[in-house]
Every structure is written in C-alpha cells, then in structure tokens.
C-alpha cells in the first residue's frame, strides 16, 4: 500500500516537471512558428509587390506620348503637387483593386523633365502595406522613359 502511494507521488511530481518543461518549450517553439509565419508573409508581400511594380514600370516604358495613360493608371486616384503627378492605387488583402479599406497601396509619382528635344518622364513606384500604426514600405522601383519631340 505504501509502495503504491510512493509511486503515485513520484508520478505526479514528474508530471508537474514535464508540464513545466513542456510549457517553456512550447512557448519557444511557438515563437519560432510566429517568426516563420511573419517571414513567409513578408516574402509573399515582397514577391507580389515586385510583380505589381514591374507591371506598372513596363506599362510606363511602353508609352509613346505624354497624353497616353496606361490602363492601370486610368483607374487610379490622381493628385498633383509641385510638378509631380501622383497616381494612387488601393488593393485588398488578395491584391484585387478596391476603393475602401485597402491593405496595400501603390503610389506612382511621375515627374516630367522637359528639354528642347523632348521630355524625360521619371516614375517612382512605391508599394506599401497599410497597418493600424501607419504605412509600411515594401518595395520601391525607379524608372524613366524618354519621349523624343518630333516637329
């Protein structure tokens, strides 16, 4: 009888130690999973941001006149400040264009340097993620397109 109670006591002591050790290990491992998830999310965001920015850059590269706006920019919100034109595109969580509660934003700033022979259009594309604390910059792409003026 005495032997049985001793065995049960030592079993419970072991269980307590095991639970304690397991909870510490689980906390550490959980942090590892959270870090992995964050890293995967960042990587996914960056990949899509690069594709979206590259798509817009290629459209700008393809324009042949100043009046010719790309399909993507036609649907964007337009603002102008200090000689720079801004085109804002809002996207939801699935990277579909949206008008309300955007998760991602693309800001395309077009600056035109006019010279006698033509116009050099600089395009700065900024992709950012909207957070409650503010906007988090994901990717920037700078490109330019020269449009020669013909008589």
């Amino acid at each position, binding site marked *: 009888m005495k032997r049985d109670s001793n065995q049960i006591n030592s079993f419970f002591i*072991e269980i307590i130690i095991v639970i304690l050790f397991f909870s510490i290990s689980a906390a550490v491992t959980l942090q590892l999973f959270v870090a992995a998830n964050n890293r995967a999310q960042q990587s996914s965001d960056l990949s899509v941001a*690069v594709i979206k920015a590259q798509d817009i850059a290629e459209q700008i590269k393809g324009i042949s006149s100043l009046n010719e706006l790309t399909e993507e920019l036609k649907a964007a919100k337009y603002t102008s400040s200090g000689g720079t034109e801004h085109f804002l595109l809002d996207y939801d969580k699935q990277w579909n264009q949206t008008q309300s509660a955007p998760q991602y934003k693309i800001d395309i700033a077009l600056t035109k340097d006019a010279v006698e022979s*033509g116009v050099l259009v600089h395009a700065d594309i900024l992709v950012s993620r909207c957070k409650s604390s503010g906007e988090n910059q994901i990717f920037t792409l*700078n490109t330019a397109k*020269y449009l020669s003026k013909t008589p």
Partner: protein
Amino acid sequence: MKSKSNIHLSVGSSSILMIFVVLCLTTFGMLSYVTANADSKISTKNAETVQNYYKANQLAQTKLEQLDSALFTAKSDAKQAVDEGTCDGLKNKSLYQSSSEVQPIFNSNLSKNEKYAICYQIFCKLLLSKSSGVVMEAAQDGNDEIKCSFTAEADQNRQIQVKLTVNSYPSAERYKITEEKLISTQDNAADASSEETFQLWQGSSKAQ
C-alpha cells in the same frame, strides 16, 4: 473470483512522451523557419535584381535624352551655319571648326538642302563622339548612316546595351533604336573554361 484491473502509471513514460513531442515541435518549427527564410532571401534577391535593371533602364533613358539633345543641337546648328555660311555664331564653333570637312561645304555649289544634310551629319558625328560613354560604329561601305551604341550598368555582371542609328536630315525622327538588350559583362573566356560538356544519352539502353 474478483477481477482486478491495474493501471500501471510507470515513472518516466510521460517524460519520454514529452521529449518526443518537444523534439517534433522543434524540428517542424526549425524546418518552417528555414524554408520561410530561404523564400525571403530569394524574394529579396529578385527584388534587388529588378531594382538594378530598372535603375540601368533609367540611366539608359537619361543617356538617350542627352544624345537626342545633341542631335537636336546639331540640327539647329547645321541650319544656322548653312544659312550664315559660317560656324562663328554657334555655341560649339570650336568643335565644328576643328573638322576640316565643314568649311568646304559652305563654299561648295551644292543646294541648301544638301548642305544641311551634310553639315547635320558632320555635326552629329562630332557631338556624339564628344559625349562620354558613346561608342561610334564604323560606317559600312556605301552607307553614310551614323550608328552608335552605349551601355548602362545594371549590376556587377549585367548591363543594358542600346544601339541606335541617326536618321538623315529630312527625317522627322532624329534617331531610331535598333537594339536594346541586357548583356552579361562576365569574362567570356572564364565562362568557356568552366563550361562542361555532357555526354547525352543516345537512345540505346544496351550495355556496351
């Protein structure tokens, strides 16, 4: 007879189970982190490559603007020089006068349009060869077209090469881009030496 059912809670079994579970969790956690990290590295590398390419494209477009400005200047200078019969009133007169080909054109019996065309071609050559980074291509026999090329660095191993042809005088477009491509700047000889030849399977599985 009274049947007795005993549950043996042996000491150490829970520890073994816990060690197994913790090992599993740690392994899967590490694996997922390593995979996510590798994906992130590839994404970052890709993003850098794209950024460098478009930076080079921006440089190339800026260079193109400079060259087009030079051609524009050459056009207006040629017109002014032929009309006035001298290069004295021009901004680049010292450069133009350094060429022995310019003065005989003014004194020749050619029509004004012919003089414009010849002057424009000479001025273009002079102004383009003065531009830094521009490589003039040698004219082929019987072809007076001016061809030149320039490069813009994308990164250590890649650059964008642009080749263009300058159109002759009456043409509305001053130049035409004939080639724009991304080229590798790695040493070709080093590539050739590291290249391995693989013996391809010829379609016969019989042992020789």
